[in-house]
């Protein structure tokens, strides 16, 4: 450690143990986090109250109490951070809290419209899932004190990821919801989307694998035009991931998930190797596959039709047509610049307004202003993750941090872009906002990992030149 040896050579005074000194330091980052958290919890509570005033015309204490559940959990997580990751990024937790809380408020708003209460209502379940997810995040923080532990489990993570992905295909276990076979369930209850968890395992695997093998992936190969293309034998991994994505499209009928994993892999591959040729190769592979799928698979073809010609009356009325997409657009249009106000729109007209279409519901009631704020929150969250990549010292941590953040960014893009017709609509959950337990658990684990990584980045000794 050259940095410390520089300044301690001539002093005779006994050096104070660094740990003791730190205890007396005010935890600036954690205090900032607490301040932001209180604001986020305040906004969350206010949105639930506004929903009640807008939709019911009165304040009902039941969900205010449930809403407080989220606040208690995140404050608990904050306290844990004070002990186990005191240098962690102070923005990540408040942003996740705010998005999660806004989601609960909107889901609650749709429950009110559909007159659902108690355990059958999505908002209560979402609150319980949030508590569970934050519990998982706390556990991750407590168990994984050093992210490099994960490097050791690279291949196990890869195996787990693939297994989770394929789990819904197991007869008797898999469930099909609105055409996509991406759920597992026991009996008629407790459905779970293992693919959401798989994205973390795969990110760990990609990071570990690429750090180990990037030399062979980046250094050798033939130069063609201005790019160095990989050797045939090095194409193995990309072909495997491509095949996996294609099988998701074909067997699980889930375009969005396939795009998410493949996109994640490509970006991490590019980061690790610095070779644009990999990206071009991967993109042409995926586009080629998607093109073939759109010609041969009815559901993919339908998605493209809906995307390109949504307002066409024939497409609109067709079975599996653009009805939902267009209703979402109507909702967004209704919201306009400032929205109808919470509880005062009609998001329940759009099918699945609390999950896939929660962004349209929020856009209707909070307007373009609200959507911009939400997108800014996501962008900020992703940017904090990317900071780990910029500031980090170990390549595994950098790759993992960026990969996990990118997966959030890409997921937002696929869902929101689908709703607003940037790309064809595919079923994915909007991180933190949408109703769905597996998605919450996965995203909160990502939050925990990002916090852990950011703490390590700040704690690591630096070279002073």
């Amino acid at each position: 450690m050259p940095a410390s040896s520089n300044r301690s050579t001539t002093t005779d005074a006994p050096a104070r143990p660094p740990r003791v000194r730190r205890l007396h330091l005010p935890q600036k980052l954690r205090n900032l986090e607490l301040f932001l958290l209180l604001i986020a919890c305040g906004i969350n509570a206010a949105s639930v109250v506004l929903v009640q005033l807008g939709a019911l015309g009165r304040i009902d204490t039941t969900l205010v109490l449930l809403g407080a559940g989220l606040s208690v959990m995140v404050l608990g997580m904050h306290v844990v951070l004070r002990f186990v990751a005191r240098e962690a990024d102070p923005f990540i937790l408040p942003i996740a809290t705010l998005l999660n809380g806004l989601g609960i408020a909107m889901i609650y708003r749709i429950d009110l419209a559909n007159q659902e209460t108690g355990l059958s209502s999505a908002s209560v379940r979402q609150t319980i899932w949030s508590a569970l997810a934050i519990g998982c995040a706390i556990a991750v923080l407590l168990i994984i004190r050093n992210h490099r532990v994960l490097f050791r489990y690279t291949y196990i993570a890869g195996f787990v990821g693939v297994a989770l992905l394929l789990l819904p295909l197991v007869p008797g276990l898999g469930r099909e919801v609105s055409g996509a076979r991406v759920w597992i369930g026991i009996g008629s209850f407790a459905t779970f989307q293992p693919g959401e968890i798989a994205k973390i395992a795969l990110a760990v695997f990609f990071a570990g694998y690429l750090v180990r093998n990037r030399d062979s992936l980046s250094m050798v190969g033939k130069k063609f035009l201005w790019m160095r293309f990989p050797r045939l034998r090095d194409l193995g991994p990309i072909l495997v991931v491509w095949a996996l994505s294609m099988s998701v499209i074909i067997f699980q009928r889930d375009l969005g998930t396939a795009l998410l994993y493949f996109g994640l892999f490509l970006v991490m591959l590019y980061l690790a190797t610095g070779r644009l040729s990999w990206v071009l190769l991967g993109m042409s592979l995926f586009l080629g596959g998607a093109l073939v799928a759109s010609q041969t698979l009815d559901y993919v073809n339908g998605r493209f039709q809906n995307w390109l010609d949504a307002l066409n009356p024939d497409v609109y009325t067709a079975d599996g047509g653009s009805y939902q997409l267009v209703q979402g657009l109507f909702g967004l249009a209704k919201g306009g610049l400032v929205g109808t106000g919470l509880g005062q729109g009609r998001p329940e007209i759009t099918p699945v307004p609390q999950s896939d279409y929660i962004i349209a519901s929020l856009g209707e009631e909070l307007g373009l202003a609200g959507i911009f704020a939400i997108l800014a929150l996501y962008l900020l969250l992703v940017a904090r993750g990317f900071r780990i990549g910029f500031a980090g010292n170990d390549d595994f941590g950098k790759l993992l941090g960026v990969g996990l953040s990118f997966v959030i960014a890409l997921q937002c893009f696929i869902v929101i872009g689908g709703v607003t017709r940037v790309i064809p609509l595919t079923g994915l959950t909007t991180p933190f906002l949408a109703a769905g337990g597996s998605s919450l658990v996965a995203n909160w684990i990502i939050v925990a990992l990002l916090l852990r990584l950011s703490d390590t980045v700040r704690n690591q000794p630096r070279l002073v030149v």
Partner: protein
Amino acid sequence: MNRELKRVSMVVLLMFVALLASTTIVQVFQADSLSADARNTRTLYDSYSIERGPILVAGEPIAQSMPADDEYKFQRTYSNGPLYAPVTGFIPLNGAPTGLEHALNSELSGTSDAQFFDKMNALITGQSPKGASVEATIDPVAQQAAWDALGDLTGSVVVTEPATGRVLAMVSKPSYDPNLLTVHDDQQVTDSYQALLNDESDPLIDRSINALNPPGSVFKLVVVTAALESGKFTPESTFPNPATYQLPGSSSIVINSGGGTCGGGDTVTIATALKQSCNIPLAELGLQLGDDAIRATAEKFGFNSDYSIPLDVSQSVYPTVLDDAQTALSAFGQTDVRATAMQMAMVSAAIANGGVLMAPNLVDKVTAPDLSPIQVFEPQTRERVMSAETAATLTQMMVNGVQDGAASNARIDGVDVAGKTGTAENAEDEPYTLWFTGFAPAADPKYAITVLVEDGGGMGQTGYGNLLAAPIAKQVLEAVLNK
């Protein structure tokens, strides 16, 4: 790795810029066209779920929005629906509104430009927006009297205030109940609407402003106005008085309604011709005036133009191209001359108001929910159609017509009624259209009235204006003068 990371950051930024752009396009630039899409049920629910303002007659609501316990939040109800249907129209669950509901839709729904700040205020304070109330000029006594007097006949009664143009009564029969079309059940509304549409008596047509009929003899008022205003004729100008008259350049002949000559003698005056409602002298007068002069006067009264009260009134027609025979026929309101009841009410009102035609108007004022006035409809002069002298001369002739002429059934003891009847031929075997138009009291006209009876009043070609239309006018005038 940081160089690559920067590039990936740019990609992420671009993805979010794309999302910002796409949401902006949908929520701002496409918002209007998406809201206007017929499949957008949100727009429909919205039009129901704001508290639409009431339509008032003499302070009492004839249309109002009552709280409803369903997704539409409010139920539009019409009190005395069939009576006021031509005034209110209706705002259906799944189609376009009609009547005042249509003409003042933005005010009633609170979306007019004048209500912009109220709307913003409601948005900020969280109050639910409310529409403005619309006060109609209708006099409930006149409206009810007209409804009763018309009985089961097909037609219309229009009563206006000559000095202001305010419409005091506007009845159309057969009518319908607008409440049938505002129930919160799509299918039921569609069924009711289809039934009304298929009804052969056409109840959905407002016969006061949207039914065009040949005016027949009531159009003679326009021709005589043109004659007197030309300066070439006086009421004492004389015309040959044959019992039959061959139209120029045609083999058709014209007869007077009685069959013989117009009174005794070889010649007849305009005064007598109008009082007895003879066709032959008017045909001769028309030919001497020429169609251009008649058309010019007719257009001063409002023929050949579109106007709204603010309900859109169908355009009454004096044809633009006429040969001599047609000009002669047009002089007693036949050939292709067509008029609405509202148009004939304007003719009478102009004569009653000393020659000045006031723009007919159905709305007094529009008032915001906080009782501040949004719009007050002041009486507006449309045009001076004739000199005061001509108006006085015509009034005297019309009084004579009621006193002991062709419009005698409109006579009221103790009140001078000025009036003119009409019995217009439609196609050869079709029932006549019967008219009365006039005003009272003649010296100080308070009410101008026009009665239109379609379908021969059920008597085919045997009924005539004085038999069926004049008594209706008399009954309404008695009701409003004695109130």
